[in-house]
């Protein structure tokens, strides 16, 4: 027989932080922003110069323009967010156990923060070479 609440409990179990409206919307929003920033990134870094790739010297001088490092940092934050949310969605489709999901959640947050910190450090390092 159908037990009232059995399914409800299943879907409301609070010890699990899976997918939700806000997270999904963040993925969509970051994806959308990504497209906008990526266009600028591609044009700046790969199209405007002969050979498609900038030399070290070119990069350093580019970074003296204030909006370039700002744009790159925004790009980095958005791309890391989108990549981790997307990867997490794929993992969620495999239905990890509660414990494993917690490990994934925590490590993804840490990896994301580490990647962004590293990126900012890199931008600062380039700026200092100018």
């Amino acid at each position, binding site marked *: 027989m159908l037990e009232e609440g059995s399914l409800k409990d299943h879907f409301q179990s609070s010890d699990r932080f899976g997918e939700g409206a806000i997270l999904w919307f963040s993925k969509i929003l970051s*994806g959308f922003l990504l497209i906008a920033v*990526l266009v600028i990134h591609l044009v700046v870094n790969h199209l405007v110069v002969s*050979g*498609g*790739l900038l030399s070290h010297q070119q990069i350093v001088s580019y970074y003296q323009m204030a909006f370039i490092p700002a744009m790159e940092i925004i790009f980095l934050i958005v791309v890391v967010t989108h990549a981790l949310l997307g*990867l997490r969605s794929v993992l969620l489709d495999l239905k990890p156990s509660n414990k494993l999901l917690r490990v994934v959640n925590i490590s993804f947050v840490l990896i994301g923060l580490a990647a962004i910190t590293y990126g900012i450090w890199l931008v600062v390092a380039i700026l200092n070479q100018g």
Partner: protein
Amino acid sequence: MSEQTPKAVNWMKWFDPRSRGVGMWAFIINRLSGLGLVLYLVLHLIMLGKLAKGPQAYDQFIAMMKTPFWIAGELLVVAAVFIHGLNGVRIILTSFGIGGDRQKQLFLIIMLVAGAAVIFFAWKMFAHAGGG
């Protein structure tokens, strides 16, 4: 008595297009390109670390990148970016009520645009490599 069929190993079904339609192809290439781009992102960030090590290390690396093999690899990344990005546009549109009943056509248009973009980039990148 009855056996539950879904198993964790079934993830290979994600990439099995047999007897499936256009939407499934969209799902497959979106997932593959997404996973590929995550991998690229990791490598890209690591490689960019060379920028901090000074001009010599970085420019040496860039020189290596200009061989046809690596250009082809880079082109793959460009293709993934366009496929994944444009497919993302399709998902955003359909998720917010635009073209939900035209998803097949939407997908085909997007793939045509992506194809054109990849050809443009290929021309641009190989031309530069040849000329440089």
